[in-house]
């Protein structure tokens, strides 16, 4: 006994540790930091520490009260953090797990003297290192000092010195702003005009107004190493990764393969040794990401970038290897060393260990270009993707095909996606100057080569254009040849070959018209050790024609289907629900099995479920998991539309669906059936009809009266949906919309411009439970995901509330819901309309759960398992209103998306959201706006207003409030005339056509603090579009709805309350 105790490491004293999250999801900073943060909090708890967590993002697991002892859903600003530190008096802060946001905040708190004043120790990697890695000039000097090569470069803080450098060095050059995330404001420039433009935006994006200008390494191989170092100096490499796209495309926008495939042992260890030199020289304590460029023919290398924190790449590396980098980083930050931390995968070995893989991992980014037709789709140093799909396979080919399928773009194969229509010039153009279509262009080009009988020449040609290594091209060529073989196979396809290569049965059927059910699928374990040691991790991927590693679960399993890669409209919120579903299943005595392929998220942490199958959430994979685990059933209601879409096929294959079943899903998706159901219930829906032609659409619109809402049937997330105010707009919609197909008519609805409210509920067949009703600030017409949402609803009366509850219950009953349902209503005077019902957990579930403490995911899971709400502790009916207000404010990534129209409408555009909580509506709004990064002009600010004609009268009282707050208004002649006639004095500014200095100059020179511009114009060339884009480029907040402007005025007129923990708000609610 005594010796055993002696061997225990000395127990560290319990500490109060502040963990800073990364805030709202934006391009370049996504769910990976929730994954990292949750691991950190769990590690801190396991070691007996108290966790104080600050994050404004309500869709995160880390902000659940179960994860941290004190959760602050407060803005991530220095002043907000200072107030929290003053209240909580943490002993230490853990800054390296909250992405660039968390890191920057820690540095700012340190520099502002806040940490010193309150005696807060900074854990992990020292501030000097963080600063050194971010300060391009100092970093370069440090690397040269230790003999590590970096690209030739210069640091500039103004445009002219940069132009001078370029005159000497020539083009192309890379512009890298310091202290930004995802390469914001940077890029590759090929001439002086581009250099001037990019330098200007880069300098303004940089926190310290500093930009690195470096010689381009275009065409070199891009390689990353994920390193861990402890305070005793021990270092390990968790994983290396090779980008299929050579240097020139941001690694977040590159196809990434782990481990590297084209590096020899000498290359691999040359870069590994260099990585270790770097982390030692920088005194890193925890995780660090190092990016290299490796010259393909000389073997020289350069260090491109060092990130001394957990990152998107470290999340990918963790999922690729099974090694929990964030958890081990946290232990290191607490002072533990790698040789003492147990290896969580094997349980017997130590964390000082380098994973050996016996499979290949491929990541493909998911871009939002399907949502933004105007966006510039070229890929460069500025990241544009919103999420990623990861495939694990025994070969690169299988992993690539799985990652491709997992994008959920309805592309199951490399060829046959329409690129066969492209000309050779179009293919070459994309291969040379990459867009999101490059992989498909490469495949199509190779297919052309195969058909001409000179595939080798095609490979050489593509390699010449793109600098993609021939190794990859030959691997892709084999897949393309295999697909061609399937097309020619008729009714005798090589199904085993297809499954071995990662294709789905449906893909095979689509290519050759038949695909019999096949045996031979097996599950392989991700064990970090290539089978050298027995592992405990229940982490699997699928293989074909091999032995099976799956071990039976101790308890009966239930499969939860995940939501795949993060995209606009289907974000981290669905992962939140999946994680809670898994937890609820475990609580209920089941083994939770998750099928999902998003490497960034919490749901794919094998610690969360009893069994993780890291595969695309497709019918083959879900069915195989269901069969292999002999599961009781499958739950689809938590994985967003991706999971719901599997219902029909799974049912056809005999898979038992628990909870909301196929019939109810069909009903809500099929408008006619749904309309019939509504009319039986007497619930109103805005009048509308289906048009089979645009001529018919016009007739319907005339009959209903403008404005009308038009959209193609069978679309989701508002795609192609538009509000049309007159016949001219309808005509131009007809011009740009896809043709109307016989089986998919155009829907034309009367547009009810009322108050939009949203309800998340669970129904067990008899009782309904509604935790709360959300009301939207923006009137109907703006996608609910882009609206500011307020709970409890502020302007809905008791009588209307009762009607909403009754309607919700009636609809749930009619749809035979057994689980979650989400309904959006519009209130117009005393009339209640329903506009949409979704038979699944929605985007707002995490927020309502967070606000009310009612775990509706758990309730939905238990209902699906057969329990009744009355047997649960949540109650029934509408839960009593909270005595505080939460405001959800959407956050956009427009700065990352050149050319995108920012005006809000029926199509969702936001990438994330923040929450403001306070005891007053105005206080919550204020915190929400601050958290969303809207810089509030104090008094004396300048506001540029351009108001649509139909809104000008409505705008007057709102603009008066801004005047009363002491702000000056700028307006172009039309708006100005109207406002002045109402007695609001405005400063004049020229329209663009009137010549410089005009409205764009005013914005670019930061002459305004806020832009209010709600003038929708369909044309990207309109002044208003240019004004909105100019605001984005100049990093000036731009509100595109008067309703938002009214809310902001309200926030500006009031003060917010002190920070309070979510736990404190919950107690307040319980006592109310």
């Amino acid at each position: 006994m005594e010796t055993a105790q002696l061997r225990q490491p000395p127990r560290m004293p319990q500490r109060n540790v502040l963990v800073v999250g990364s805030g709202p999801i934006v391009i370049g900073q996504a769910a990976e930091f929730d994954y990292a943060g949750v691991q950190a909090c769990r590690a801190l708890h396991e070691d007996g520490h108290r966790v104080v967590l600050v994050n404004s993002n309500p869709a995160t697991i880390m902000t659940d009260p179960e994860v941290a002892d004190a959760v602050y859903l407060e803005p991530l600003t220095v002043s907000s953090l200072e107030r929290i530190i003053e209240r909580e008096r943490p002993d230490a802060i853990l800054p390296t797990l909250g992405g660039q946001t968390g890191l920057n905040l820690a540095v700012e708190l340190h520099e502002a003297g806040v940490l010193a004043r309150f005696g807060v120790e900074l854990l992990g990697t020292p501030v000097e290192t963080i600063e050194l890695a971010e300060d391009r000039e100092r970093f370069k000097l440090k690397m040269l000092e230790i003999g590590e090569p970096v690209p030739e470069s210069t640091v500039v803080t103004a445009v002219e010195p940069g132009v001078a450098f370029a005159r000497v060095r020539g083009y192309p050059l890379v512009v890298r702003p310091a202290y930004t995330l995802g390469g914001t404001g940077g890029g590759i420039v090929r001439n002086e005009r581009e250099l001037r433009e990019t330098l200007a935006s880069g300098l303004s994006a940089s926190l310290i107004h500093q930009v690195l200008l470096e010689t381009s390494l275009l065409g070199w191989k891009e390689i990353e190493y994920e390193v861990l170092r402890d305070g005793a100096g021990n270092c390990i490499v968790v994983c290396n990764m090779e980008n299929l796209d050579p240097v020139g495309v941001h690694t977040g926008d590159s196809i990434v393969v782990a481990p590297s495939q084209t590096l020899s042992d000498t290359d691999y260890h040359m870069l590994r040794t260099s990585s270790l030199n770097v982390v030692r020289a920088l005194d890193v304590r925890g995780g660090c990401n190092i990016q290299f460029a490796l010259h393909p023919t000389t073997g020289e290398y350069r260090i491109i970038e060092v990130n001394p924190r957990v990152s998107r790449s470290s999340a990918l590396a963790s999922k690729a290897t099974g090694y929990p980098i964030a958890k081990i980083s946290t232990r290191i930050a607490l002072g533990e060393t790698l040789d003492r931390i147990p290896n969580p995968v094997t349980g017997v070995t130590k964390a000082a260990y380098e994973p050996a893989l016996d499979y290949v991992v491929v990541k493909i980014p998911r871009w939002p270009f399907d949502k933004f037709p105007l966006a510039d789709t070229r890929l460069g140093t500025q990241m544009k993707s919103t999420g990623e799909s990861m495939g694990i396979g025994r070969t690169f080919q299988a992993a690539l095909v799985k990652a491709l399928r997992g994008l959920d773009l309805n592309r199951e194969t490399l060829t046959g996606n329409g690129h066969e229509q492209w000309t050779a010039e179009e293919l070459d153009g994309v291969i040379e100057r990459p867009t999101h279509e490059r992989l498909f262009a490469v495949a199509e080009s190779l297919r052309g080569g195969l058909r001409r009988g000179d595939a080798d020449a095609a490979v050489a040609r593509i390699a010449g254009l793109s600098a993609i290594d021939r190794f990859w091209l030959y691997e892709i060529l084999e897949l393309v040849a295999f697909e061609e073989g399937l097309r020619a196979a008729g009714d005798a396809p090589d199904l085993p070959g297809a499954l071995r290569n990662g294709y789905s049965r449906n893909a095979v059927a689509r290519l050759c018209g038949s695909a019999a059910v096949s045996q031979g699928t097996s599950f392989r374990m991700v064990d970090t050790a290539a089978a050298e040691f027995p592992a405990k991790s229940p982490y699997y991927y699928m293989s074909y024609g091999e032995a099976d590693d799956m071990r039976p679960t101790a308890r009966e399993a239930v499969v939860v289907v995940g939501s795949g890669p993060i995209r606009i409209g289907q974000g981290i919120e669905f992962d939140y629900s999946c994680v809670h579903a898994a937890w609820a299943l475990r609580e209920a005595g089941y083994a939770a099995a998750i099928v999902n392929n998003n490497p960034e998220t919490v749901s794919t942490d094998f610690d969360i479920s009893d069994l993780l199958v890291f595969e695309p959430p497709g019918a083959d994979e879900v069915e195989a998991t269901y069969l292999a685990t002999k599961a009781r059933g499958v739950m689809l209601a938590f994985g967003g539309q991706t999971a719901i879409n599997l219902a029909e096929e799974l049912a056809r294959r005999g898979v038992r669906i628990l909870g909301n079943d196929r019939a109810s899903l069909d009903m809500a998706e099929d408008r006619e059936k749904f309309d019939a159901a509504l009319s039986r219930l007497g619930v109103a829906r805005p009048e509308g009809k289906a048009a089979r032609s645009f001529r018919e659409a016009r007739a319907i619109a005339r009959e209903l009266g403008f404005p009308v809402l038009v959209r193609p049937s069978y679309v989701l997330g508002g795609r192609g949906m538009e509000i049309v105010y007159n016949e001219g707009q309808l005509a131009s919609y007809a011009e740009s919309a896809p043709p109307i197909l016989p089986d998919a008519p155009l829907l034309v609805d009367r547009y009810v411009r009322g108050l939009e409210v949203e309800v998340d509920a669970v129904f067990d067949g008899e009782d309904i439970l509604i935790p709360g009703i959300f009301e939207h600030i923006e009137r109907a017409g703006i996608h609910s995901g882009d609206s500011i949402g307020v709970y409890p609803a502020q302007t809905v009366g008791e009588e209307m509330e009762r009607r909403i509850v009754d309607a919700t219950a009636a609809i749930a009953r009619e749809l035979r819901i057994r689980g979650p349902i989400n309904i959006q209503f519009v209130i117009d005077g005393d009339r209640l309309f329903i506009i949409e019902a979704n038979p699944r957990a929605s985007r707002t579930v995490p927020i309502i759960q967070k606000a009310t403490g009612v775990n509706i995911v758990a309730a939905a899971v238990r209902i699906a398992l057969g329990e009744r709400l009355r047997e649960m502790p949540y109650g029934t009916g509408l839960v009593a209103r909270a005595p505080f207000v939460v405001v959800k404010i959407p956050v956009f990534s427009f700065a990352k998306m050149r050319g995108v129209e920012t005006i809000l409408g029926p199509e969702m555009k936001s990438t994330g959201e923040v929450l403001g909580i306070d005891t007053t509506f105005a206080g919550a709004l204020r915190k929400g706006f601050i958290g969303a990064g809207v810089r509030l002009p104090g008094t004396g600010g300048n506001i540029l207003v351009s108001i649509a004609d139909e809104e000008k009268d409505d705008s007057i009282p709102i603009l008066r409030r801004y005047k009363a707050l002491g702000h000056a208004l700028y307006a172009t002649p039309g708006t100005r005339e109207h406002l002045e006639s109402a007695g609001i004095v405005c400063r004049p500014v020229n329209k663009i056509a009137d010549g410089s200095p005009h409205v764009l100059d005013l914005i670019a020179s930061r002459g305004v603090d806020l832009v209010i511009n709600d003038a929708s114009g369909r044309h990207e060339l309109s002044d208003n579009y240019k004004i909105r884009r100019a605001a984005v480029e100049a990093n000036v907040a731009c509100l595109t709805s008067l309703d938002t402007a009214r809310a902001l005025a309200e926030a500006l007129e009031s003060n917010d309350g002190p920070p309070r923990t979510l736990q404190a708000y919950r107690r307040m609610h319980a006592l109310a």
Partner: protein
Amino acid sequence: MKQAALFLADGTRFDGGGLDYEGLALGEAVFYTGMTGYEEALTDPSYAGQILTFTYPMIGNYGVSGAAAQYPRACVAGAVIKRIARHPSHRSSRQDLPSWLVEQRVPTLLDADTRAIAIALREHGTIWAALAVGDAALASAEARLTAFARSATTKDLVAGVAARAQRREGPPDAPRVVLIDCGVKRAILRDLEALGVGVTVVPYDATAQEIMLHEPQAVFISPGPGDPTDLPQTIETLRALLGKRPLFGVCLGHQLIAIACGASTFKLPYGHRGGNHPVKDLLRGDVIITAHNHGYAVDSSSLPPSLEETMVNLNDGTNEGFRHRELPVAAVQFHPEASPGPSDARLVFAQWLASVGIGP
């Protein structure tokens, strides 16, 4: 593709395809977990007599360079690969791996379930095996394996790969080290020469007197294949050199010095073969990641009082290094020369040479 299969002595069989070279390999089945370094591994004399399964599934991606080879020819008895690259791509590649394996007459099994093989070897322990490529070899494999398993021995492995005659390398005026060759890798000679040492290579069975004739300043005992107890002559030589010259051993050399000092060795259940083994330095307290290739280990509980354990394997606690308390004698179980593997221990040779007064 030709039919091919791996047969384990316990009756397990793994099927796949084969390269064009038809033949039968008999030997010990082992697995290597490194994700790179196939050329170095296939030419590592320590794999002599072994059928090597690569757990990493994509092998051959960067071709064969020749420069990475550790020996003039392939040393493995047979190779098992999940997927072999027929279109390698690398600036140093001179040949693709499949054609090199055919040229080297290495029976090779492809498309096999290499993970299942690794698990079988982990659970059963190292085992005699036959790898057959082609119909003729497949037909006779099981009978040949049965006969082989009855009489198989590791005794002749070192003789098959060690130098047969002595040779001098490096400038004549350089400090001289004698290297007892039990199957040395080129990387060790390269590293020693890079440190300014002249190396005289002598066969594994050279006597102490023969070695002393070279007037070496120190003696280095190389790695090699098989069981250290198969080499009583070498152990005898080392015993005679104790106290006469500084000694340093690597891998098999480490085991031989241990035995010469009175320790014993044992056979590991399934060996250490890879580039990711954490080794803790008990003197400095830090951990390095090292390259391993050994089936036997020094029993740390058998170390005589004269030997001090200096390093241990963090995974299984086995001995990774020791030094003599009085004499300039030291050894490491892992491979400081890497090739393949990490170079965390690259300073070990230089530090040893410096400690015995040789070197820059």
